[in-house]
């Protein structure tokens, strides 16, 4: 059990201006699941890149199965049995499952005919091993996110990986899918594979991991110790140097204020039917549902990106016709923090300043559209500071910031735009605990200052922490709504019941 498979000693890696890793140690044992924890920017990704041969450490050394290991590149690391499942999907969408699993092998002989029959039957074996019920000849883009994740794991295993690094594998999975994944990971562990698991969800870490390494500011806060005797608070203390503050907010009733946004019997071109929804001034209305319930799509329809085909929308009591996002932002002061900040929320190749200023350029511009950086700076910097965006300068490209800071930028954008209605979609995906707590306080504060908030999240604790009132959606319909009593157990039960459609009548839509 305690046989060391991989060991890193004194690993240091610096980039111009940043020390990403300093004297980091890590030991992976055979047949164990090892948690790698740390806030965004703590150095987890860099460490993974060092292990997988993407980065070469400045000093320190790695050993694999007792002998020195100096991977010349990712391929070399794969050749040594180190597989990695990245956060970003790395499969080719239009290729079949089988082709994706054996992609490395396929590209070896450019002229050799591919034996699809054998390919698919080999793929079948891996899929069976992982308990994936899918036809290997099916294109990957027709699979659910969870299955795609498993196909990635199959791909890594098919390369004879004895060490498997998983970077936030559960970020987009439902609880049920997560359970399935965990059962598979446990089986792999029992077969002697060493797994390293990166996640921000501490419940999961405690559930499945044997050992833990915590990084803080590029150094070991603890190194390869067992999880025994380490409770959630202790882990959090290791990660952020203090214990987690669970907000002790009281339930409030904001439904007596003026209605900021109302949907009445709305249907959309995307298939929403009979959507009724009211968000009052200063209220946080949660929109709960499983992935695919049509919540983000509804948000985008409200923003004017997709057409409404029926019903009416009222902003501050007046019926409106929002034809484009520009209308929603400029005329009705509605903002949308996208769940997909990399492709929808931010322009990664542009600077922090440009990203935060984007919605207000037009408003700030003077004669002949003229606009200087100084003007933009004056109207955006207070918000960037308020949100404590960690960046060397406002000219820094957003793509170079850590996930948490990127999210702060995409929120700062709407604060600067002084929206009256803000739709926040999955605000804490891929964000560390401290930033998450900070964002929660911020969202609460915004509502206290009168902003109407529509919160979309699949994170139940988050929903119950923040929402005043919860609307449950399933299959592009509203299943019911309930006031949040902030009692986790009863609330989560009632929400799940609504999703199943058991409480529709009782909720009195």
């Amino acid at each position, binding site marked *: 059990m305690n046989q060391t498979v991989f060991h890193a000693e004194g690993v240091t890696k610096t980039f111009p201006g*940043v020390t990403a890793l300093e004297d980091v140690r890590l030991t992976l044992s055979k047949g164990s699941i090892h948690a790698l924890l740390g806030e965004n920017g703590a150095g987890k990704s860099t460490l993974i890149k060092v292990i997988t041969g993407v980065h070469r450490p400045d000093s320190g050394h790695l050993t694999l199965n007792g002998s020195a290991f100096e991977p010349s590149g990712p391929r070399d690391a794969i050749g040594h049995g180190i597989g990695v499942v990245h956060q970003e999907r790395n499969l080719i969408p239009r290729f079949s499952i089988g082709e994706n699993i054996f992609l490395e092998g396929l590209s070896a002989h450019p002229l050799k005919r591919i034996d699809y029959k054998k390919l698919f039957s080999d793929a079948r074996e891996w899929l069976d091993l992982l308990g994936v019920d899918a036809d290997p000849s099916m294109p990957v883009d027709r699979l659910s996110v969870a299955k795609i994740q498993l196909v990635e794991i199959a791909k890594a295993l098919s390369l004879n990986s004895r060490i498997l690094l998983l970077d936030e594998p559960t970020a987009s999975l439902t609880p049920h899918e997560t359970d399935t994944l965990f059962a598979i990971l446990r089986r792999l562990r029992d077969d002697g594979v060493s797994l390293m698991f990166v996640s921000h969800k501490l419940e999961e870490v405690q559930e499945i991991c044997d050992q833990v390494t915590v990084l803080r500011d590029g150094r070991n806060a603890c190194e390869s110790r067992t999880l025994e005797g380490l409770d959630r608070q202790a882990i959090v203390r290791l990660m952020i140097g*203090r214990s987690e503050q669970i907000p002790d907010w009281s339930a409030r009733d904001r439904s007596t204020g003026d209605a900021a946004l109302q949907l009445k019997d709305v249907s959309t071109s995307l298939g929403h039917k009979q959507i009724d929804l009211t968000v009052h001034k200063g209220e946080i209305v949660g929109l709960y549902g499983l992935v695919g319930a049509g919540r983000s799509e509804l948000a985008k329809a409200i923003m004017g990106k997709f057409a409404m085909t029926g019903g009416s929308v009222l902003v501050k009591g007046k019926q409106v016709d929002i034809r484009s996002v520009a209308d929603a932002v400029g005329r009705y002061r509605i903002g949308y923090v996208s769940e997909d900040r990399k492709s929808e929320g931010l322009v990664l190749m542009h600077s922090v300043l440009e990203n935060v200023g984007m919605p207000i350029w037009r408003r700030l511009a003077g004669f002949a559209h003229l606009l200087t950086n100084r003007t933009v700076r004056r109207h955006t910097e207070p918000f960037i500071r308020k949100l404590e*965006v960690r960046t060397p300068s406002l000219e820094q490209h957003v793509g170079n910031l850590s996930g948490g800071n990127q999210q702060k930028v995409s929120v700062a954008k709407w604060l600067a735009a002084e929206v009256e209605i803000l739709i926040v979609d999955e605000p804490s995906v891929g964000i560390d605990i401290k930033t998450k707590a900070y964002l929660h306080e911020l969202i609460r504060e915004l509502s206290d200052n009168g902003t109407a908030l529509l919160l979309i999240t699949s994170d139940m604790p988050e929903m119950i922490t923040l929402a005043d009132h919860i609307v449950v959606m399933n299959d592009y319909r509203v299943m019911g709504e309930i006031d949040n009593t902030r009692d986790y157990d009863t609330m989560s039960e009632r929400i799940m019941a609504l999703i199943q459609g058991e409480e529709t009548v009782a909720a009195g839509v």
Partner: protein
Amino acid sequence: MTDIRQERSGAIGHVEQRQSSRLTLLRLLLSNEFGLLVLIVLFALIFSTVSPAFLSKFSLYALGRTAAVNIMIGFSMMVVILTGGLNLSVGAIGVSAAMFGGLLMEAFGLPWPLAIAGGLAMGAALGALNGVIIVRSGLHSFIITLATMSIFFGVMIFLTRAESYRDISPVFTGFGRMKLFAIVSPLLIVSVLVAVLLSVLFRYTALGREMLATGANERAAELSGIRVNRMITYCHMLSGILAGVAGVMLVSRTGAAIPSMAGQLGQDWLLPAFLGPVLGGTLLTGGRVSVLGTFLGSFLVTMLTTGLLLMQVGAFWVQTYLGLLLLLAVLLDLFRRSYLTRRKLI
């Protein structure tokens, strides 16, 4: 805790300042614009050593005049490349605009400033048409402008019966032949002015910023309230106007509006159109432009062409060299960029 927070928020602009001044210098030395300047000086030295005629007053004047047109052609392509697209119909639009200007002067007897304005309006209209079709159809600009290139050119040939307009206002053609300080063509000054205007557009206006944001990430731009379709259409319209300016410049220089002045389908313009922006560091995937880079890039290309012709290298070799240059530029840029990324300088 509060201390840490303050320190961190104070980090904006302070912590890395010392290091950044050194990095700024390195970044400047590795920038495209600097590289182009070095190349321009280098080739000027080579050409003037090999062929002393290169530095003669007339040669320099002619170089500036030709460069002026190529720079406009480069700009015309640049403003579409920044949307992540391209415009194959620059030549066709440029010639059509010039022919329309010629028609207004010769057949309708309009005074030349009005005729020029009419020509540029034609350029704008054709460019906008490109933009509208692209935005409405959702197809890539490559296929749309390939089609409109043929259509615009074909219709133009049909309407003009492939004949030139030679009755051009002498004041206007005088402009194209004028020499300031014996070596500077007014056309080059027009190009410089346009370059300044474009720089202002992209640096100091909301419109230019919205265009760049659209090019960099259309979905994010749209969800931030930018009317992306309108921006793409504007970019194509601007491209049409700039192509029109280039066409009108040629009329002023040659004293006639000739249907074949940009070759069959206007394709003689394509190589300079891409060379300028690409050498200048405009990102082909959109979202980033360098007006100065395009200016210098187009200038370098013109200088190479002129210099090689002076050295009496055959015209076909000149084409070959330009093609090689384009390839080399793209490859060099690739290495430069990966170096900068690896050092985390961009």
